[in-house]
């Protein structure tokens, strides 16, 4: 049995069964994680591609324990944590067949165990085996489907520079996001902050986020600001579709650690830990020390507008 199959069948599956999840949820979760792992491992020998995917886990992986290599911690975030495992920790735990949500210490045990296991594995060998797999190449498909978002992430991952300029990816027409372009009465005010409590892996775009995207789509000079990538979603397809929606409209996406527009990206050199409360989040957004010039301007503008609407 290869290292990935051993982890899924002999380590993760018994653990999830031990928490009492339904067999249907278990099979779906294992299947998604297997695809994500195989798809990432298939590109492990392509530094730029691998780093583009791992970047999606950097905000969290930087703080994961045990303190193994950062690539392995990010691998665990992207391939394992960003999966229906999120559902069992959310208010949607019933979908997993549970009678209550899983405490965060149990989820932390899943990720710590995975880091310990994969720290002992030979990633070059796992890459070789993944290339032979007939499984879906999820990340390559996403790169093809969301070229503008992918280019932004790729340029963030390609260098240790604080800011990167590159030729804009040409856009024949803005990316269409189902639901956002419907003629429905949704309004939001610039400078407004909204908090949503939803299943972070669900592919659905929740109403408060939908309202913001709708307002932004009618505006050529707007920005969506979030605390962290995971505060938007842990579902990579949903994340890339939202980024593609914004960037193909020349809109700005900014988290406390990243800034993206089509043709220009910026990063905070030492990522801040994602907020777990409103106070954390406001403190993160207010921390513009050491940021690139556009990132700093966007976060400062939010603080200014938020004050004026108080």
């Amino acid at each position, binding site marked *: 049995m290869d290292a990935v199959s051993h982890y899924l069948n002999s380590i993760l599956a018994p653990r999830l069964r031990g928490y009492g999840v339904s067999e249907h949820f278990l099979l779906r979760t294992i299947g998604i994680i297997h695809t994500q792992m195989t798809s990432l491992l298939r590109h492990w020998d392509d530094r730029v591609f691998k780093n583009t995917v791992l970047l999606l886990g950097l905000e969290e992986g930087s703080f994961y324990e045990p303190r193994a290599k950062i690539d392995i911690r990010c691998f665990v975030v992207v391939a394992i944590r960003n999966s229906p495992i999120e559902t069992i920790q959310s208010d949607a735990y019933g979908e997993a067949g549970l009678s209550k949500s899983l405490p965060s210490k149990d989820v932390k045990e899943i990720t710590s165990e995975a880091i310990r296991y994969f720290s002992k594995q030979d990633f070059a060998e796992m890459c070789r085996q993944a290339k032979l797999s007939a499984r879906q190449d999820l990340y390559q498909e996403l790169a093809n489907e969301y070229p503008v978002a992918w280019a932004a992430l790729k340029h963030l991952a390609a260098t240790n520079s604080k800011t990167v300029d590159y030729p804009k990816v040409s856009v024949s027409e803005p990316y269409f996001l189902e639901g956002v372009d419907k003629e429905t009465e949704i309004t939001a005010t610039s400078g407004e902050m909204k908090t949503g409590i939803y299943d972070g892996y669900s592919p659905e775009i929740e109403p408060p986020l939908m309202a913001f995207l709708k307002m932004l789509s009618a505006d050529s000079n707007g920005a*969506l600001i979030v605390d962290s990538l995971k505060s938007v979603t842990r579902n990579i397809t949903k994340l890339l579709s939202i980024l593609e929606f914004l960037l193909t409209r020349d809109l700005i996406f900014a988290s406390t650690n990243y800034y993206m527009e089509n043709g220009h990206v910026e990063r905070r050199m030492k990522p801040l830990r994602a907020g777990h409360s409103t106070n954390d989040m406001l403190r993160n957004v207010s921390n513009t020390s050491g940021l690139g*010039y556009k990132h700093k301007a966007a976060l400062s503008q939010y603080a200014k507008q938020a004050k004026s609407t108080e």
Partner: protein
Amino acid sequence: MELIASLFCHVSESIPEAEIQRELQRQHDILAQNAASSGRTIEHCFFHVGEFNLEDPDQVLLRFLQRAQADDLGLVLVESKDLFPLSQQAHIPCMEVCFVREGVQEILGNKDVQVAEEDLRPKNVYMYWGF
């Protein structure tokens, strides 16, 4: 005081599309290594593709000039002079450029040259926080 550098990578459009990314990454890796060996942190990185025309700059060149005008490029690292064909009297904001292959450092441009500034602040911002 922190020493900073900015990397300028350039390819013309006369090479096949598939090779453009590889060539930009190759230049980047050489320049990033040079910055690290001289103890400089990288502030800005410019990946430029196409005609090197500073009289009618495209978006990447314009941002490069704007950062020069803002005086926050630090030392500009370029692989070789043929990738950055400018004289010391070039009509650009002042910048200090190091040509890595030739091993020479030059100050180019003129402090009196002004380029249009970009409005950095988005008009409308929305903050979403899900958990």
